[in-house]
């Protein structure tokens, strides 16, 4: 790891100011950024910790939506969202291991947009709103391909606002080594229809499966998607699965998600 300066501001404004000074980068749970710095793949001169900012912490309900501070750990979400939004809390509880869940945060995961990460499936699958220090961004506009998002340089996610689903579930098939999602599907049922978001499978990162959404909106039953399939085209190919296998898992995990939500 190269040397760096460490700052821990108490407000979003101070964090934004600190990020404006030279080669700075926000640090949240550090579960992705620190390993990449140790491997010398990343060498920011200033690390701006977001975990001391009170307004970026915690889970709060506001009518039909649940707002989660970007610096809230997965463990906190798993616990504090359990009664209001069990599908989302269960997803947080399936991320990594206890050590990772006690450090890793919602904002870090969403900003990083790893194609195999779990949270992007929930954010896109619920049609959540990403709140930053300057604006609000709809999930459908936010994720722009693997490791790419709509965030501008120096822009900080402060929180995410999730519309609470009538029923929801996340079905995750583990990549055996990393235990990220080899393919994970978040299914959420709203009065306005069903949303289905898929992570882990596509070279383009998290995506919505429109055909399944239509079928499930008509009939919220695992059998409704039994005959559907996604194309293996542009699915990820690696040691752990072929594109065909991942395409197959999209349907299987979607069905399991629906069954778990029903």
């Amino acid at each position, binding site marked *: 790891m190269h040397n760096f300066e460490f700052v821990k501001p108490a407000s979003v404004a101070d964090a934004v100011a600190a990020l404006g000074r030279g080669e700075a980068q926000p640090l949240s749970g550090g579960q992705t950024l620190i390993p990449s710095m140790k491997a010398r793949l990343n060498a920011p001169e200033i690390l701006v910790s977001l975990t001391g900012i009170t307004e970026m912490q915690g889970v709060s309900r506001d009518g039909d939506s649940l707002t989660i501070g970007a610096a809230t750990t997965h463990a906190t979400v798993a616990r504090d969202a359990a009664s209001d939004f069990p599908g989302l809390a269960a997803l947080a509880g399936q991320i990594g291991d206890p050590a990772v869940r006690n450090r890793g945060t919602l904002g870090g995961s969403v900003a990083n947009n790893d194609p195999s990460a779990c949270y992007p499936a929930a954010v896109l699958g619920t049609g959540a709103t990403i709140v930053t220090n300057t604006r609000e961004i709809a999930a459908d506009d936010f994720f722009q391909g693997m490791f790419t998002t709509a965030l501008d340089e120096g822009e900080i996610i402060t929180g995410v606002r999730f519309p609470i689903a009538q029923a929801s579930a996340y079905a995750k098939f583990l990549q055996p080594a990393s235990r990220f999602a080899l393919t994970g599907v978040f299914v959420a049922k709203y009065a306005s229809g069903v949303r289905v978001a898929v992570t882990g499978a596509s070279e383009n990162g998290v995506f919505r499966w429109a055909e399944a959404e239509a079928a499930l909106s008509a009939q919220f039953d695992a059998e409704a998607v039994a005959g559907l399939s996604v194309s293996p085209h542009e699915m990820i190919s690696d*040691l752990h*699965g072929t594109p065909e296998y991942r395409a197959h898992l999209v349907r299987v995990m979607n069905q399991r998600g629906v069954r778990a939500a029903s």
Partner: protein
Amino acid sequence: MPKDDGIGASSKRREDLRFLTGNGKYTDDINLRGQTYVHFLRSDLAHGRINSIDTAAAEAMPGVLKVFTAADFASAGGIPCGWQVTDRFGEVMQEPKHPILAEGKVRHVGDPIAAVVAETYEQARDAAEAIDLDIEELEPVVDMVKALAPGATKVHDDLTSNLCYDWGFVEDNKDAVNAAFESAAHVVSLELTNNRLVANPMEPRVAVGDYDPWNDSHTLYTTSQNPHVIRLLMGAFVLNIPEHKLRVVAPDVGGGFGSKIYHYAEEAFCTFAAKVLKRPVKWTSSRSEAFISDAHGRDHKTKIELALDADHNFMAIRTETYANMGAYLSTFAPSIPTWLHGTLMAGNYRTPLIYVNVKAVFTNTVPVDAYRGAGRPEATFQIERLVDKAARELGVDPIELRRKNFIKADQFPYQTPVAVVYDTGNYDATMDKMLELADYANFESRHAESAARGKLRGFGIAHYIEACGIAPSNLVGQLGARAGLYESASVRVNATGSISVYTGSHSHGQGHETTFAQVVAEMIGVDASSIEIHHGDTSNTPMGMGTYGSRSLAVGGSAIVKATNKVIDKAKKIAAHLLEAAPEDIELKDGKFSVAGTDKSVDWSGVTLAAYVPHNYPLEDLEPGLEETAFYDPSNFTFPSGAYGCEIELDPETGKIDILRFIAADDFGNIVNPMIVEGQVHGGLAQGIGQALLENCVYDDQGQLLSGSYMDYTMPRADDVRGFTVDHSCITPCTHNPLGVKGCGEAGAIGSPPAVVNAAIDALHRAGHTHVTHIDMPLTPSRVWAAMNR
């Protein structure tokens, strides 16, 4: 009932107190005054020609003491290979030089090019980034078969090809084997891969070199399974340091699994650089570095065939194997696919004719050497997969086919056609025990229960044999070993009766400090708590060959027995003097010497005190003191065997396999500590199941390691390996060592991979997927699903 802490007692491991509380003393815990740190700049290319290395900028960086390259090692030898294999034409193997730092070419990703020594580790790493390399990329040699094609790019320009050797065993049997195949009623064949593995001990490798200029002596602290072997190889062949000026210490070591047997370049580097710089030099491997610098295991590609007569008797086995050596020959690499593999190809069966062909190949990958089981898992996997396939093709019960061809209990000692003589065994007994513990009789109802839930259940069997307790020195010498394979022990009885045992074996997780003390406690009849086991330091232990090949109790334990017997003999003479009796009449029981048939006695400490305070002592006949050393060279290998049963459930939607129960019924001969044996089997099973379902070391066609971290290399986790039932009640004691023990360290890793794969094939066949006759390990969900849907 075993004596408290004697042979047969499940004594708790005394070393665990320090290990589990974070108080072990590992090599990385050693920090010497004035210590410096080395970082190795390693190749990120699989194959390249080094045009130039410019270290000027790096040398000018803060904290840097010196940047070393191959040029600094002109006076040093290469890293030696400890075994020379002779090929089937009578020629010795091709043996390339293995320099400490890359010379002329880089030959695998991870090959060290330069070494930066600095005041801190971070300074060394920073400076390494300032080294200017001009390396011309060459075509990488990755695939073993392509590597042997005429005109293939060579890993070593000075060798005639990428073929290390072409070995035939038994070469004289070849024609008879071929004739048997001509006349066979049935021939069954199988092509398979034994997947490459990374050992991944919990503690990565570490080396600290220290030099004392005032008496020109060196000390190397290192994570080794065999410090004496390192002292011998590094001192004599690499750095030209005589033994009396070189001390090698391997303190607590956090697992090895074979990967810490070998002499590595980093050890020689730290020892050498400490003298150049007159300061201690420390290297601590990162986990990422371990993936590209620790020797890998397995990596065979094999075609095996079995000839059977009309009654399903095995007539002959014929194999052709390609074995990956990697870019250089690691210490024992050439022996693994040959003498530790070919000699095991009889398995548990009476196959009269066997021919094994092995082509060892150089590639632009990390060197490959022994990994838990070493050669024997490769042999067992081939045989046990093939026998299963034969049963399926012939439409017979795989258990019955095995039983029909087993070497029977009354046929021992049994001379196999592949040189070795099995001393004892009872394969029907272990098979019976396994089936009983597995509740095999009720498998069908469990299968039906799974089917009702849409899951495929299967049961797989494997019966293994292994050769442990390596090995008779004169025999291995004939086979090409450049070392003896005896073991040593000194038993030093102290004046008040406590006992310090110095063993040439090395404990890196095996629990020797507990079990070896149990052996001595049993023999003398004193409390185990009065016995301390010392190991791992060449300055105080007799020359020993270390720990691997499940040899520590069978060979090292036998040396302790020998030395303890010498101690007892002398102690009896002292007791005879004290009791005014003849030594022949002295009996030792429960730590007390008595004169047979009388009530005269003296206890252990009375004798030991007399030995060191010899006021009333036969000084004219007997030296004072009570300390003896013994070396033990075994007369044969030991042959543990066992039956393994694996019951799995397969999810047909995803291809995922869950192990529901795993039964290991082993014959390890006599048992010193059942709890430790059970733990050893559990660990072995975890690694074997890891190989079968999870672990895979994969290079792409450019020689880049695709599974270079835990993000892609799947280590077994607790929830991957459950439901173990371990039994070792079937005992046929070894006939040629004093304890009658056989060794248990590797069995789990040897017997389990074919049991798991056989279970998966069984589940698929029962569900009608009869086109799936084999799936290469690891049986990942993706592979299983692809096979089902082919």
